[in-house]
């Protein structure tokens, strides 16, 4: 029970980061290697503001906004010019990692390379369910994460904004031919990815404290969540994240703490071998042509 609770709590955070990867990938076909650093930006900014006397909640909101803005900057600086050069090259791999290195070290220069305190957003009390317990922070965090994922998925499916995003993801040329502003959607995707990373950052901040090198660790965890879940739909990454959270907790309690490091990778390798598109991409058979008409639902309602 304890394993499940803690696993879901941390898994939801991994899922958020994974969804951040996935949302940016979904629209631009770019894996943003600076995604983990977006999370770090929110944590560092929030911690710095709180130290400066700003109340915790506004500080957190500004931190999240900072992540979103940074996300957009990553797109404008490191992704857009590269895609303009050649849409199918993998040069973004290098440029987004370059931005990650810059962000990480700038943060270390500005705020120092050591860990600092992170403001408590909620009282440090626990909820007991049977023999297991979970902090209010974790509990609320889990629901925020799941709610965010749900809102995103509903927006994607139900609103014309979301459907247009789907259309761009499926076929950018066609979408821009019918008048979709692909750049605006890409900017929006990176901003939303930033928000997801930022929220994830605020949720884990109390556990990890504020450290400029957090981005690496959590970026990898989010990436693993994405790989387990699959890249077909952003929501898959949340599933992957929850699974990853459960796995790491299970590995820690059943094998040893180090197993939490390597077990996820074993799972990723298995997933990649068995179903290269991720666990949650297995879908019922739908002919490609039908899927395409649905995707272009905006064009032909």
């Amino acid at each position, binding site marked *: 029970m304890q394993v499940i609770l803690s696993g879901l709590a941390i898994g939801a955070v991994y899922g958020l980061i994974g969804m951040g990867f996935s949302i940016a990938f979904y629209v631009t*076909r770019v*894996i943003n*290697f600076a995604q983990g650093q977006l999370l770090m930006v929110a944590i560092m900014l929030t911690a710095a503001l709180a130290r400066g006397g700003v109340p915790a909640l506004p500080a957190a909101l500004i931190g999240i906004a900072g992540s979103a803005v940074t996300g957009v900057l990553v797109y404008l*600086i*490191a992704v857009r*010019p*590269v895609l303009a*050069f050649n849409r199918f090259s*993998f*040069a*973004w*791999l*290098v*440029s987004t*990692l*370059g*931005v*990650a*290195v*810059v*962000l*990480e*070290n*700038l943060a*270390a*220069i500005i705020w120092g*390379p050591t860990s600092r305190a992170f403001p408590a957003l909620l009282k440090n009390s626990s909820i007991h369910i049977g023999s297991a317990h979970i902090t209010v922070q974790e509990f609320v965090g889990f629901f925020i994460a799941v709610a965010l994922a749900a809102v995103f998925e509903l927006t994607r499916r139900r609103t014309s904004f979301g459907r247009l995003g789907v259309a761009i993801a499926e076929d950018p040329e066609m979408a821009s031919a019918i008048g979709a502003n692909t750049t605006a959607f890409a900017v929006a995707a990176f901003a939303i990815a930033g928000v997801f990373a930022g929220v994830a950052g605020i949720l884990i901040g109390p556990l990890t404290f504020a450290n400029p090198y957090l981005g690496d660790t959590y970026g*990898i965890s989010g990436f693993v969540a994405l*790989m387990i879940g699959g890249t077909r739909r952003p929501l898959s990454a949340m599933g992957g994240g929850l699974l990853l959270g459960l796995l790491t907790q299970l590995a820690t309690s059943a094998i040893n703490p*180090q197993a939490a*490091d*390597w077990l996820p*990778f*074993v799972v*990723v*390798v298995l997933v*990649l*071998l068995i179903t*290269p598109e991720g666990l949650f991409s297995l879908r019922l*058979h739908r*002919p*490609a*042509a*039908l899927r395409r008409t649905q995707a272009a639902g905006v064009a032909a309602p």
Partner: protein
Amino acid sequence: MSVQAAPTPALSPPRPGGRAIPWRGPAGIVIALAFVWGTYAVATGSLYTQGLVLTAAVFAILALSLDLVAGTLGLYSLGHAGLFALGAYTTTLLNINHGWNVFVLLPVCILGVGAVGLGLGALSLRVSGLYFAITTFVFTLVLTVVASDFSFTGGDQGLLGPLFPAFGSALSGLGKSVAWAIGAALAATILLVISIRRSPLYSVLLAIRDAEPMAAAAGVRTSLVKIGMFGLSAALAGMAGWCFAFLGVVSPGQFNWPVSVDILVMVILGGINTTIGPIIGAAFISMFPSWVNINPLWQEVLFGSLFVATIILAPEGVAGLGRRAIARFAPSLLARPDTADALPIPARAAAPALSSDGDAVRCRGVSFSYGEGLTVVDDVDFTVRRGTIHGLIGPNGSGKSTLVNLIAGRLRPTSGTIEIDGVRVDGESAPSRARRGFTRTFQDATLVRELSARDNVAVGLYSQVPAIPVRGPVWPALPRSRATARMIRGRSRGALDYVGASDWRSARIADVPHGVEQLTQLAAAVVTGPRTLILDEPLAGLAPSEVEHVAQLLGQLRESGVSVVLIEHQPRFVFDVCDEVTVLNAGQVVATGPAAEVRANDDVRRVYLGQ
């Protein structure tokens, strides 16, 4: 078999200085001597210099090995840090714990890591380039985690690598032996890369990268070549790991995934798909910390900015910029002599068919549908008689291209049989069918834009030159390679003569007009002397005079016994040129038979003129 060249004078290409370059040979000797002298200088130099230069040399091997797949095949491996680690840890562990001789370990690393590369390639290349990048990335992650979590690897602290055996007293004047070992490894890598780039394999690799369907149609088993090249690249990375083990401590931090990206940056910064570029990049990046001696955090910031700036401002890298400058100011330095005499296209078409009653192509009840839903080709009977030109026409979406793809092996029929020259081929892949004297062209000209017309045509000869992929890495060392290269050049030129595009043979496809591109594709298809040839809209985008020229060519091909299937949108051209015509509509045959009959057929009129 010669033909009046059709291009109008206005379209004549710029003539590059096509003289042989006298200093090429001596320059090679000077560079080799300089390399040996440089190795000597490092071997006898200070420890600081040794550490710096030898690390750079190891990374140069890595960067060259990565460029072998990234530059020529477009496979952006993020597994090179992992493969590198595998070589270094294997050497260290087997030497320290089990006392294996370091000279035994060299082939062990090369073959072992190479085999791992083959496995990784076989697993990851089945989906897409992105999947390949991700899989290799995860591979590096896993290795790093294993190396830091398990005790036999020394955990995060790592292990102290073995010492390279010093020279005996007789050779002690040569200095540190390890410098010579690494120098030799780097030299071997450079020679291997140069061999590949000078061999016919190079054009084939670029064709796989940029024009995979064309390569497959020429008989290249593209997946196998990709996996093999990645295996070779991995073997070199393993050798780099072997070298690295002698340079001190081997620890997980030296092989984590950002190192993979560093290697990629070396390749891109120096110049992707060049010989010298990866070496420049490796030297620059690996020595960066000692050149830019500032606060390490700012150093990292600068380093990251460099990544971004390189990608955005100079995607061709230093070597690319250099080459461009030379092309601008001293183009004669780049010109390759083209002295090969044109060789005629072999008359394989005239040889007796394998089976006496064999029609060139015979499809019986062929159907094809995507998934459960759409049936694109529906129970089609289609026969091309030997030595005829057979037109295949029909409205857009009638299934012409799909039928051709079924015949050529790009798609497999859902049901029905396909015979070429009386032999059932529906179970065979496209490359196997190419070996049966069957070639095709593609609707949208698929050629390698950065190669010359001649080198593109040379790809078409793939199935007629034995073992190109195996010979490529050691090309100049093989006895018959000169003769083979001359034969390939000559036949390519002959094919370009045949289609009337030989004036453009040295021009890059990126610089030629569209008509020449179409003719080059045609040349690449006829260069093997095929028995059967499928042309998918060879007239698209051609001027009227060029259309006339192609019509003449088709006539000549038929005279020499080639059976031609012609897909075209211009019905008038088809009825004028073809002996027989088949009309498709909505995946079904509307009419088939002699051109005149089909032209008069009411159903055909209905299809074209509307109900």
